[in-house]
């Protein structure tokens, strides 16, 4: 009976659930079963719209059967299909619903996972919503005390902000990452996060903010003793002197190349942008012209 037309299965299941004179209570068990089969059938035949619908109904059925776990699972499948259809609002809705169901099961991990999946799907299309989803996911994990899982999420959120050119927000996220790492004693990640934040500030040509950030971070022992600290101080001094060669050299050092790809890209491009905003250092105008010429050459 499972190999029969999924449409038939759906209509049969609908009949079971619809209340009428002959039916006083819906038979969710069998209906859910039928819905699941129909959804699988649709997925195999690549009829995503109908499959999505079937999954939705299956999820509702599971809810009625008081098994939120299965319900959440079906919701996730529905959301994945919605992603294929590029129906972004539905994607958000489904994933959120799934996350709620997971929380009902008292399982925060899969909840944040589903939100993260949603954010990843939306990165290109709706970056603001994506960032929101990432934040919610991180909040869930932090409430549960599992900050370590949140590192990747923070990093992803920061990279989205960088792409959106919202550098202060990106730096804030990186600092939050540093905080989370501090709680977990993940020193390497923490130092890398702080260094990335400083680089982001420098890229935004906010030298004062960068220096303030550097001073704040220097208060922390772990950062003070690390390679990243040395690298940051070198970078800052090179920046204040407007020494392009030094910046290039620091950017090519291994400390920077161990950071996130997005940050590395910033350092590479940042070399060129230094010249554009050196009003504070008037007597380095000449330097900037030279550097622009160099850029033009190659």
């Amino acid at each position: 009976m499972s190999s029969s037309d999924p449409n038939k299965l759906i209509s049969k299941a609908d009949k079971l659930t619809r209340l009428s004179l002959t039916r006083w209570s819906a038979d969710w068990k069998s209906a859910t079963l039928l819905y699941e089969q129909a959804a699988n059938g649709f997925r195999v035949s690549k009829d995503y719209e109908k499959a999505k619908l079937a999954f939705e109904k299956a999820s509702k059925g599971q809810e009625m059967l008081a098994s939120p776990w299965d319900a959440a699972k079906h919701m996730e499948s529905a959301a994945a299909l919605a992603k294929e259809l590029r129906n972004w609002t539905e994607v958000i809705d489904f994933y959120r619903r799934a996350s709620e169901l997971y929380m009902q099961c008292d399982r925060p991990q899969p909840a944040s996972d589903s939100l993260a999946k949603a954010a990843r799907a939306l990165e290109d299309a709706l970056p603001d919503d994506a960032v929101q989803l990432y934040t919610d996911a991180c909040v869930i994990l932090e409430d549960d005390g599992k900050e370590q899982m949140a590192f990747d999420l923070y990093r992803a959120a920061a990279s989205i902000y960088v792409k959106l050119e919202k550098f202060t927000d990106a730096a804030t996220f990186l600092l939050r990452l540093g905080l989370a790492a501090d709680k977990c004693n993940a020193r390497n990640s923490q130092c890398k996060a702080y260094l990335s934040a400083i680089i982001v500030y420098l890229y935004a040509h906010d030298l004062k903010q960068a220096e303030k950030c550097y001073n704040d971070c220097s208060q922390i022992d772990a950062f003070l003793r690390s390679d990243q600290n040395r690298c940051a101080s070198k970078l800052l001094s090179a920046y204040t002197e407007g020494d392009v060669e030094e910046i290039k050299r620091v950017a090519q050092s291994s400390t920077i190349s161990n950071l996130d790809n997005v940050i590395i890209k910033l350092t590479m491009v940042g070399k060129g942008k230094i010249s554009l905003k050196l009003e504070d250092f008037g007597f380095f105008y000449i330097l900037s012209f030279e550097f622009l010429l160099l850029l033009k050459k190659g």
Partner: protein
Amino acid sequence: MTVIDILFRVDEICKKYDKYDPEKQREANAFLDDAFARLYSLVEADIEKALAVRFLFSYPFLFLFSFQTLIFQINYWNKMQKSDKVSTEKNRAAAVALSAEIRRIKARLMEEVPKLQKLAKKKVKGHSKEDHETRFDMVLALPDRIKAIPDGSTAAASESGGWGTSSSNKKVKFDSSEERFGSDFYQQTEESDQFRQEYEMRKMKQDEGLDVISEGLDTLKNIALDMNEEIDRQVPLMDEIETKVDKTTSDIRKNNVRLKKTITQIRSSRNFCIDIILLCIILGIAFYLYNALK
């Protein structure tokens, strides 16, 4: 042996054994009254000796015909038997020693000259005025003659006639002239320049290699630290899994026990006996009916 050789030999022999010649001694003794003449003859003899040694040294073959240095000649003959190189080496050492000896003699003779000058001034009976003058001239000529005795420090021309043994003296001299010292010095810096360059090149290569190694080590360090953090992340997950699995195993065990109990209850012996008795009764009834109907 040619006649000339014989003549030379005879001369040398006579010179060596002059002291045994009574006539010559008488002649020499005649000079004893004259202090100047005596001293002058001594100086002359020394100059002759130095020149002879020098002469003999510059022309080694003639060693063979010199009885004055008979022993030296025997030694040199022995040296000639050996390889040329070794003999040249020894000759150089011998040359150095002889040159030093000659220099000593020269210095001593120079000291004697002022004495001779004083004596020359004194008037001696039996000598005419011309003799006196000539004596003075001879004394004046002495220093030049002494200086003319060649030792190792004079120009190479006089020694190039030799077998190159004496030319090697140049390099180990202490009182050689400034220019020569300078040119030798310059030659050596060319070699050491090359050496220095090679050293610098090798050092650069080593530095490059060390740079590559340090970069690799940095990457390794980063990877190791990330792995460390990842494993730290996995630890609480593993703990959770462990608790869950423990709970599940205990649940299963409990269920197994209950199932066993239920099954034994169902299959208890009492029920089994009752089942058999009832079965027998049914069979009995069936048999009775069968008999009755037959």
